[in-house]
Every structure is written in C-alpha cells, then in structure tokens.
C-alpha cells in the first residue's frame, strides 16, 4: 500500500511576471490582451535568441490579468534561464518603454498560489 516516489526534476517552471509600461496614461496602441501579452513575451525571446532560438522556447500564459498586466507563465525547466534572461533584457514593446518584473519563480504551480513575503498580516 505504501508507495513513495521522489521526483528530482520537475518538468516545468512557473513564473509570476508583470509588464510595467512607462507612462501608463499614454496607453499602448493596442489593448494588451492575453494574446498581445504572449506576443510581447515571444518578441522578447526572439530579440535575444533570434528567430529560431526564440521559437524553441515554448511559453504558456496560464493566467493573465489585464488590470495590472500580470501573468503566470509556464515554461519547460531547461528553458527557464532563457526565458528569464529574455524578459529581464526587454526594454521596449511596440516602441514603448517597458519592463517585465519577475515576482515569483517556482518549480510548482502551487508555489505561486501564496507569497508569504508580500502577505500583510492584519
């Protein structure tokens, strides 16, 4: 009955990121829906790694919130470093100055459900 398995390498990594746009009052030319958000991530990857290198990194936008332009991304563990570096080095999207902020990174989606660092005790 008793069974124990230890999985040392998780298949995916998950990131909670948000896109900060300079001067939010002057909005982007398009409304940033999840499709455009995904496009922004892909653009960041191709800019750093080229068309082929960028296309090899498969990213899933699991959840997207248009209000604060935050999202939960899923990426294969071996591509995590590539994605993270591409997001960090992004400085503009659609010729607007912007930056991706990485809030949380975890090998488990469950890890993004709670952030004990940002929780306000009341």
């Amino acid at each position, binding site marked *: 009955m008793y*069974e124990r*398995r230890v999985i040392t390498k998780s298949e995916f990594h998950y990131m909670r990121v948000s896109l900060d746009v300079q001067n939010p009052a002057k909005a982007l030319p398009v409304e940033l829906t999840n499709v455009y958000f995904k496009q922004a991530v892909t653009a960041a990857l191709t800019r750093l790694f080229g068309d082929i290198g960028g296309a090899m990194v498969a990213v899933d936008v699991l959840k997207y919130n248009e209000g604060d332009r935050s999202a939960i991304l899923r990426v294969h563990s071996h*591509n*995590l470093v590539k994605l993270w570096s591409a997001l960090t080095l992004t400085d503009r999207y659609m010729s607007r100055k912007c930056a991706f902020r990485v809030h949380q990174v975890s090998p*488990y989606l469950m890890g993004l459900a709670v952030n004990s660092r940002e929780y306000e005790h009341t």
Partner: protein
Amino acid sequence: MAAPLNFNSPKNLLVFEQSSFSNEKSRHKTVIGDHYFNCAVEVCSPNVAQIPTTVTASLSPSSYYIVRNLPLSRLIDKEFIEAFVRNGAFYAVSLNTRIDVANSVAVLPTGKLVLSVDKDMYETLGLEGRRSIFSQTRERKFVIEVELTKPSFTPGKKNYERTKWCFSERLNLRFDFVFTWVPHDKSICSSSVGKYFSGMGLSVSSCRAQMMSNTMKDVCVPDLLALNILENSQDLFEWLGAVSCYIDSEEEASNDFVSMYTTPSPCNICTQLTHAKWQGFFTPEAIAMVIDEIRLYLKTPDHPPWASVTVHGYADSPVSWRGKEHGYHQGGENIYTYIVFPNDNYWLYMAVGSHDVCP
C-alpha cells in the same frame, strides 16, 4: 555551428507518498507536526457547495500575534523560558526578513532558537555556529542554534552569559516576530505571551487568519480514481496548483497560441469545485485538526469523492521539516498537500525548492 546553449534550472524535490491514515507506519503525524511555520492552508473539494463549517471553525479562531522590535535578549530571559518555552509550544518566526539577503530568526516549539545570519553578522555577533549547507563554496550564510530548554542554559553558566552578552551588549538585535503559543495546560490562555511582551512596553498586535473562498461551476476535474497516479503525479499536482492560482483552464485553453495547458485526463465535468484559502500563521496542531475534520467529513453521507488540504510554509523561515535548514534561492517553497479519500487512504505531496533537504 555553435554548441547548443544548455542552461540547467536549479534542482528541486517533489516527494509523492501514497499511504493510509489507518496504516500504523504512516508518517502523516510527523509530516504535519514537524513542519512548524505554516503561512497558508488551502482546502479544495469537488461536488460541495461550501467548505464544511467544522473545518472553518478549526482554522478561523486561531489568532496569532505580531510583536515589533523585539530584542533577542528578551527571548533568552530565564523568566520567559520558564513561563512559556517550557510550558508549551512557542512558535515564532521573524517577519519581513528575507533569508537570502538578510538575517532570519525563529524559535522552534522544541525550544530551540535558530538564527540564519550572514557573514558580517556572524563575525560580529560572536556566537559559535556552523556554515549553512547551501553556501559551502561561498561562505555567505551561517546557522546559529541556541538550545533554550537545556538545563545548563541558565544564568550564571558560561554559555548563557555569553549568549546574553552577545544579544544585549554586543549587538542589540531586534526583529519583528510573528508568534503564537500553545500551552500544555489548556486552562492558560494562549494570549498571555502577548501580554507578557506588551508589559515590557513592546508593541504587540493580535491578528486573525484571513479566509478567501471560491466556488467554480461546471469545471473539468480529473477523475482521481481512474488516474494512474504514479505516472501522472506531477500533472495532478500542477492541476491542484492551477486551482489554487484560480486559473480557469477552460477560458485560457480556448486559444492554443496563448497556452497549451490542459486538465489531466481522464476528467469529468463537476457541477462545482470549492476552494478555500486561509492566510496567516498556523500551528501544526491546527493543521492536524483540519485533516481530522476532513476525514470525518468524508465519512458523512453524500460526501465528496476526495478533498485536498495544502499547507504552505514560510518561505523565509530558517527551518522547514524537523528543524532542517531551509533557504530561499528561487522561491523558498516548502509545501505539502494531502489528498484524502473516504476510505482513509491519502496521497501526500511534499514539494521543496533547491535550498532544502529532502523531507
């Protein structure tokens, strides 16, 4: 042609266990009891309109306290040790101290004071410790442990006086703590620690766990009985995470360009899936009570097929399970999830990040 770039992500550990509460060798009591600092509890169950009130009742009244600028020398006062550390389980962990960049302190219910300090602090403080197992090559972090309940740790003894001198005269270390106390003697009120600290002129505030509840209608829920769990344990854990993060797979999956995520198959459409989350500071006793209530609830008529209880540990606590060292690195996650079935069987996930030992 250049060699392909190969970047490895840090290692992590996901332990899956399958056992039964009725199994006498089952370790569920130690898994819960040895995980001291819990910041969130989540309960999830299909086919129920709301989380049973017995579960809510066992979590909600647990109030805890926050004390601001508590000098560490107050924690080693003989009076304090005799009154609280010896006569109950005192849980305290420093607040707003990021363990990867700063110093972090915790008092374990076993009567051990654990400090995870950086190199500068270690060299200045003057208390003997050991190097952190996660910074062996670059010595950046050190762990100092002080046994508060040892009979020799008493005024007049060399070790006690040295510790006292280090905490009061050497460096006047002050931290914000979130703490709670479970007395052995049930007739004593657990708020007396708060009174003791506020009597010293420290600012103590009482806090309560916050609850968030969410019911999803007509969602795709994996059929746990038909699932080959040993093969798909990672997929199920991912799905549980998706529920906790309120990811609506139906909506997001509508567009293949955005996301390729799908609910693990085989899955059924359930009329409703209820998920509740409490955040705050929970003792292992409270968690054990929740598990017991869930087990009782699953034995009532028209019970749901299963229920899951997920417990998140503090990412910045210096210890995780059994007082073993814990670090942050990427996310500092120390999470465990019980999936409980009506026949007393359970599936247990224990997930830790790269700076943690195997639970």
